[in-house]
């Protein structure tokens, strides 16, 4: 089957950095597949997400290829890729009503006039289960809680019905209870829309509950990739074993 996304020999080096942030990464993502990218600080996991969405600064030296065999053309941000960042406070515009921020993505990507885009935005705010979406669309980011802001960011990411949703530590800044709600929301939306998901996280347990497949990164290299069940029950590398052992759950 043709994958949606195909990375071959992907390497990234930031300007002035001694070591590459990513090196020799070969990775496929099937349409509708949920792939978790796991790693600690400096593993290259966010660099990978940004390389896929072409969000890296112009000054990086990039090697290898990011190909989209599942699309007829190169993936467009907003249209084919929706991106959710860790901190919704900095990814949302502080002086624009949140409904307009969702509508703007629809207007720009779906050839939709502003009236229709605003209507669709309210539908999306409802889909991400925000209360009183028509009223809330008028609110500014600072009037919302962290969890509500992240729901707005998710609405903006999926409004154009992208084929791929990238969530880069999208729940790390939230408390445990809100994190669980956002995880359930992402899981439901991905299933409803048949989107592929690239779920970038430092938390292997969180990722394992959502992903079909897990790819473990360390120091810019792909250490191990396997189906979630296989990786959790039979990890092949010491590093994956260490990450699993360091998980602090309530039942051990």
């Amino acid at each position, binding site marked *: 089957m043709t994958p949606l996304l195909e990375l071959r020999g992907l390497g990234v080096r930031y300007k002035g950095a001694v070591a590459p942030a990513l090196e020799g990464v070969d990775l496929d993502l099937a349409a509708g597949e949920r792939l978790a990218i796991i790693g600690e600080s400096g593993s290259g996991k966010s660099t990978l997400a940004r390389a896929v969405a072409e969000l890296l600064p112009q000054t990086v030296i990039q090697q290898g290829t990011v190909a989209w065999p599942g699309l007829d053309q190169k993936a467009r941000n907003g249209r084919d890729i929706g991106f959710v960042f860790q901190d919704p406070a900095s990814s949302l515009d502080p002086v624009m009503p949140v409904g307009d921020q969702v509508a703007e993505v629809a207007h720009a990507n779906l050839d939709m006039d502003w009236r229709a885009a605003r209507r669709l935005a309210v539908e999306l705010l409802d889909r991400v289960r925000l209360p009183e979406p028509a009223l809330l669309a008028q609110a500014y980011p600072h009037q919302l809680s962290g969890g509500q802001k992240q729901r707005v960011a998710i609405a903006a990411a999926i409004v154009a019905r992208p084929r791929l949703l990238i969530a880069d530590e999208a729940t790390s800044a*939230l408390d445990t*209870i809100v994190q669980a709600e956002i995880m359930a929301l992402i899981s439901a939306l991905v299933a409803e829309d048949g989107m592929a998901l690239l779920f970038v996280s430092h*938390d292997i*347990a969180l990722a394992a509950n959502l992903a079909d497949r897990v790819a473990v990164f360390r120091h810019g290299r792909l250490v191990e990739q396997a189906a979630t069940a296989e990786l959790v029950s*039979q990890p092949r590398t010491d590093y994956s074993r260490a990450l699993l052992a360091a998980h602090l759950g*309530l039942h051990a």
Partner: protein
Amino acid sequence: MSTLLQVEGLSKRYRRGNQEVAALDGVSLSIAPGETLALVGPSGSGKSTVARILLRLVEPDAGRISFNGEALLGLRGAALRAIRANLQMVFQDPMAAFNPRATVAGLIDDPLRIHGIVGRAERPRAIATLLERVGLATELAGRRVHEISGGQRQRVAIARALATRPALIVLDEAVSALDVLVRADILSLLAELQRDEGVAYLFISHDLGAVRAIAHRIAIMDGGRIVEQGEAATVIAAPASATGRALVAATPELPVFKETVS
């Protein structure tokens, strides 16, 4: 059982516009010497306000705090400084808490000097001992804090807190920003220090997984109140409050796969 810290009826209101918001509403808790009490709750539940009041960064509207038998809230000047040596703090982000240009040795030297723990001549040796105590190579002493890793910085913050031989350390989300492997190491370091030195911890966190690894007792906060308090194992196994149940349910677990994959 003796009590190191006794907090009774702590209340604090903030004004937001023309509304009054209760950040704390009658919070009571106690910590015995050498014990770890975890204060757990969602964002905005009031956990950090309790920490700020203990450090006298914020004054409560009502309530009493007795620390080591002394009334903490009335203290000023030298008496407050003396108590502060005995009640230390480690924050979530040491980079925000430290002067970025300071060296590792300088940071650990501050409390030794300010509280007159050891004489000038003995301070380098005291610094080296503290570095060793928290598992850092003494060669790091001359480094600046931006030159070391996040885990190393948190070890420096712990060494700095330990320097005055406190009876209580308030750990406010102290392991929340760390990588998983580093977090596990820091939690075992904290447990080891408690075993060896008998220091008590107030461990503030929203992460019940980390709490389970270190706490003897758990107090769960929501909306400025303590909604549940008990032995850690009991609270986790059978939470009595709605917030406790929500926290337990929300804590990520590794999925269990019954049959091994061929």
